[in-house]
Every structure is written in structure tokens, then in C-alpha cells.
């Protein structure tokens, strides 16, 4: 699957780089705003603990090259007891399954046979008491955790896009663009639906604008379906989708 550099950056900011923040469930000031701050992407750095000023309504965030790097994190007062927990493999997979209306067993499989969430359960915060005698989750999330998240999110979103584009009349997430018209207004409608399905809230205007605009950076071949998968993927691997 093709990913341009911008999408990769957004995905890393939203998903991969956020994962270490789950350790310990709190203690550092201000981290709980990842719970509510939209598709949090705080620039091209590894800072996972944005300061209050970074989370309070900056119109637009930019990396050191001056490039726009994703949706504005929105407005949220910092918590006095900042704690977030990673959903863990089964919770994350179940949420994706419910949100995208894909049967749990069809969500993502490795080698067409093994459930991705089960295969990657240790990396994604679960235990294996009877196999590995691992009775508690790893204290620190391994480097493979973001890869596993991306694997599950990308596959699930690809499966939803494929189903919707194969049968637009029965589409669950992408009906507007699956029927052949990927206009900006139709993409807006899809993004708004994805936010409701995946994050259980309305998207902000800024978020809609940013995700919709990704379309223009994608290759023209199968552009609408690729955008649909990527739009879903960006939201489904955001910190807001991964932590609670």
C-alpha cells in the first residue's frame, strides 16, 4: 500500500509516537489531553507530552520545515490527574470491529489464518500466562507496538474500504465516495462519519478540512479508495483512538 510522506508523518504522530505515553498511566503533567484532543499531532518531533500552550487552540501546527503536519489538536483544559491507558490488543480490535462493522474474525489476519490482535497481543499490552508465563503486561511498550497498531488499523480500514467500494449500496463508512463521486463535499461527509464511528464524537471543521485535503496528495490510480482507507487509518491510529 502506498503512503506518501505526509500520511506517514501523520500516522506516526497520531499513533506510533504516542504509544510510550501510556506507560505508568500518568504522572506527567498534561498528557491526558490526548484523550480528547482530536487527532493529536504536535509537530515533527517526538514530544509526546504537549504543553498546555500546544493544546490550547493553536490555529495550525508546523514542523521545523514549515510544513503543515496535520489537524489542530483542539482545545482541552489540562487534567489535574492526567492518566491515559492503552486500549490493549483485544479492546482495540473490538472497537475497530464495532466501528467499521467488520466481523471480528475478518478484521485482520496474519498469514490468512491467525488473528492479528492475538498474534500481537504482547506488543499491544496483553499477557500470555499459559504460553510464555507472562503474567503482567510489559512495563514498557516494545518498538513493535506501533507497527502492530498500524498493521491492524491499516488492514481493518482497507477491508472496510474494499467492501464499501465493492458494494456502494451497502456501504458502511464510505458511501459518498464509493459511489464514484469523491468531491470535497462528499469527502467531508465521509470524514464526519469516520469521526463518529471511530472516535464517537463530531469532527471539528479543522479536522474535516485536514483529512479531506489528503486526497490531493494521493496517486491518481484508485485514488478514492486509497483516500478512504487512509482517512480511516489516520483516525483509527490516532492517540484518541488508541488510548482512553
Amino acid at each position: 500500500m502506498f503512503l506518501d510522506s505526509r500520511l506517514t508523518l501523520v500516522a506516526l504522530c497520531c499513533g506510533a509516537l504516542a504509544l510510550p505515553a501510556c506507560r505508568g498511566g500518568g504522572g506527567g503533567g498534561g498528557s491526558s489531553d490526548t484523550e480528547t484532543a482530536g487527532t493529536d499531532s504536535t509537530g515533527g518531533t517526538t514530544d509526546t507530552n504537549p504543553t498546555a500552550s500546544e493544546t490550547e487552540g493553536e490555529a495550525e501546527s508546523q514542523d521545523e520545515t514549515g510544513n503543515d503536519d496535520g489537524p489542530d489538536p483542539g482545545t482541552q483544559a489540562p487534567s489535574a490527574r492526567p492518566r491515559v491507558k492503552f486500549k490493549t490488543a483485544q479492546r482495540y480490535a473490538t472497537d475497530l470491529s464495532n466501528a467499521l462493522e467488520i466481523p471480528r474474525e475478518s478484521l485482520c489476519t496474519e498469514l490468512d489464518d491467525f488473528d492479528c490482535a492475538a498474534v500481537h497481543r504482547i506488543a499491544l499490552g496483553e499477557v500470555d500466562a499459559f504460553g510464555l508465563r507472562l503474567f503482567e503486561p510489559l512495563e514498557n511498550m516494545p518498538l513493535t507496538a506501533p507497527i502492530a497498531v498500524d498493521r491492524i488499523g491499516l488492514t481493518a480500514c482497507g477491508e472496510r474500504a474494499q467492501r464499501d467500494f465493492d458494494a456502494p449500496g451497502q456501504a458502511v463508512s464510505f458511501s459518498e465516495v464509493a459511489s464514484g463521486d469523491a468531491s470535497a463535499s462528499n469527502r467531508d461527509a465521509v470524514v464526519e462519519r469516520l469521526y463518529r464511528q471511530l472516535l464517537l464524537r463530531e469532527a471539528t471543521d479543522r479536522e474535516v478540512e485536514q483529512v479531506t485535503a489528503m486526497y490531493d496528495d494521493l496517486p491518481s490510480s484508485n485514488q478514492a479508495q486509497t483516500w478512504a482507507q487512509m482517512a480511516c487509518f489516520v483516525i483509527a491510529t490516532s492517540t484518541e483512538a488508541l488510548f482512553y
Partner: protein
Amino acid sequence: MAGLVCVGWVSIANAQPQAPAVVCETYPTMPACAGAVPDCTLCHQSAGVSVRNVFGAQVEAAAWPGEDAPTAEEFVAGLPDALAEVEDLDADDDGYANYEELLAGSDPADADDIPGGATCEDTSNSDAWQYDVCNPDAGFTLRKIMLDVCGHSPTLAELEEVTTSDDPSEILHETLDTCLNTEFWRGNGGVLWQLAHKKILPLPAIKSGANEGGVPLADYDDDYNLYVHASSDGNDARDLLLAQYVVGRVDGDTTEYYVMDEAEQAARPNDAVLNAPVERRAGMITSRWFFVANTMFTAVPRTTAAQAYRSYLGFDIAKLEGLIEPPASEVLIDYDNKDVLEETCAGCHRTLDPLAYPFTRYNGIGGAGGSGDYNANRLGGFVDNTQPDVDETPEAGYILGEPVSDLVEWAEVAANSDEFAAALVMDYWELLVGERPNALETEQFVTLWQDFATTHAYDVEAMLHDLIDTEAYSVP
């Protein structure tokens, strides 16, 4: 928690493992004393290292300036006064007196760690929607309940219902009740099973019964079943240590747990049956699996006692926690020639050995009557030239400073202790809140475990209903 060795007062290795407990007796409301004891690093630069930090050095200078090292008795007797003497000082020079830091849960030896009052920003006049970080938030709490206990997020409709409801509390508690009956929470491999892993320490290679391993010795399914049974359906959680019955399980779309008739229990295959007679049973700590996995072939099974102490009272003796000794009149005797009287060993063994004596009459692997059976004369089989007096080890012992005649009495004292209630509630607090209570949450936590032992009559689910109402859980 505490490090490996609390070396106490002098520069040589003169362990003072009582120190954390004395600190808690002096400052019982310290956050670090909520169901536990402070780390040795409260006074030392690191656990196991005799060098004191700036706070420890202040205490030492105030109490025994220039004097020789105090004896253990002098140390215990003098520590409260020493602590009091430096209360108003500021060891780390961060502007906060030592006692302020102790009571607030910050480190009196770390200038970067200061008491922090929770502050929240009033967002009631905000134009944009955002979580109210000053008050319980129904939507936030519903998400947490459903993810923690049901295993998935709520639907958008469910969120809208609770956030627009006149009585969101009713919805939240109904949701919790529903979730507590899901397979995700109580089913085979569910959350309750995961809580039990560290207590049971399963090893499939020696499992008997269903899915037996290559060398079937005992069936830990019994242990998981009892754990879930005692933790659900309004049952008394003290049965974790008091149950004299076996719990069976019927797998299916909905896992069912039931108290097994003794005839059914006894009719099970030889490698799975619980051999200990009914009157000698004490829940999880007399299961066949518990003895096979922990006692194995040991005469005086200290590991078994330590695992019981760690699992159900929250004290890890390996970390010098819970060192509550018998009265001084009770002399420690080295019945099995393990050199426990060595000064560096006795600090822990004065607690551990009497804690372990009541476990000595239960077989580990094999033995007369079979694995895990009670055998009053068991130690006779261990007598040889390496431990000629081991059969003189008494069955009576001590737990939490109280004398007990046998393991059933040991379990009764344990199950009715504050330590049991606090440890059990701490398991769920850490599971749901995500970490141990901080300084500002200590009072909530203490109230919760005290209510668990009184108002809730040891009903885990009733306690959880209160837990989700705490500020620690419900305020974003």
C-alpha cells in the same frame, strides 16, 4: 515498592527492615502507607545501599549524632522521635518542610519532587466543547467502564444517552452491572483471570485435568474458578482464603461457575482431585496446585508462605514488606539448618519462618495421601543428617503478629485483616484507575477498602460500584 534490602542506620550492612513499618506507624496517613510501606529510598540513596540521602542523613544526625550504630531495638524505639525532630526541617531545600512532603507523598530528599495540589481549570465558560476536568464526567466515565469491564467502547447513542440524562449515575451503574457479567470480565481468560495469574502462577506443562500437560500434577483451573467465584455475584471475597469447597466451571457462550459437590470433587481423576480434607482447606492457599507449584519438595515451605503473603496481603517479603515479627519472647529456631539465625538473614526470617510453619503439614508434590494432602507427620520424612531436627518444626506460627495454631487459623486471621481488604482493593484500583493512589487519592482509597470490609461485606462488585464514583476514576 521497597527495594531488596533496607540497610538502616549504619554504613555497614546492618539491615533495619522494620524502618518502613515504623515510618508508617509514625505517619499512618502517608500515601506510601496506603496498603503498603514506603520504599527504602525514603531515607537511602537506593535500596540495598547503606548510604543515606539528605533526608535520611538529617534523621540520623538528629537522633544519633556521632554515636555508634544503634541496635535494632534502639533503632525501632528511637526512629519516631528522630522523625519528629526533623519534621520542620527541609532536607532538600525545596521550600517544603519534611513533614509536608511526607504527608503529601512527595520525596523529602528530592528538590524536584514537591507537594502538588490538584488544580483544575474551570472551563464552564468555554466556547468549545471539552471535558470538565474539575468534576465527574458521565461520558468519560462510561467510556472507561465499558472499555475496562466490557472490553469495548460505548456506542455514540449510549454516550449521548448518558451525557443528556438527568440521572447519568443510574446509567453508569447499570452499565457496570452489565459489564461485570460479560465474558470479557469473568469468562475463561477474562479480566478476573488475568488478575489471578500472578497469584496462581500457572504452568501448563504440569497441569492436570482439561488440557493436561506432559507431566500432569495438579489442575490450576480449580484456582481460577475459585478466584472468579469469590470475586463475583455478591460472594464473600474472603473465600479466597476461607473456602473449604471446590468451584467447578462450565464453559460455553456464558461461562458458569458453581460450587462443586464434594462427591463430584472427590470423584475426579487422581491427578486433579483436591486431597486436603475439607476441614483443612483454606481457599486458594490450600489448593492442590498451590502446594505443587510452590512447596514442591520443601520441608519448611517459605516460598509457599511468601507467595500467599504477597498475593493476598500485598506484602512481598523479598522486598522487605510486611515484616511483622512475633513477640520478642518467641525465639527464632533454625529447624531445617538453613542458617536463618545469621544476623543478615534473621531480619526477614523472624517474620517469614513463623509465617511458614503452618504450611509445613501440607504435601507439595507427592507424599503420603498425595500431592497437597494434609499430613500431621509430614516432616518426619525429611529428617536426615542435613536437617536432623526438622521434624521439630511446629505447626503453629504467626501472621501479622498474631499466633495461629494451623493454616486454617492463619487464613482466618489473614482474611479478616485490614491488609487483606486493602490489598484486594488495591488490585482493582490499579486495574481500573491505572496506578496506585497518589497523595490526593489516599483518603478515597482508604475509605474504599474500609467500606469493602464493612458496608460491602467483602462483595467485590459492590466495592467496584463505589470505585467508579471516586474522583480518581470519574473526573477527567
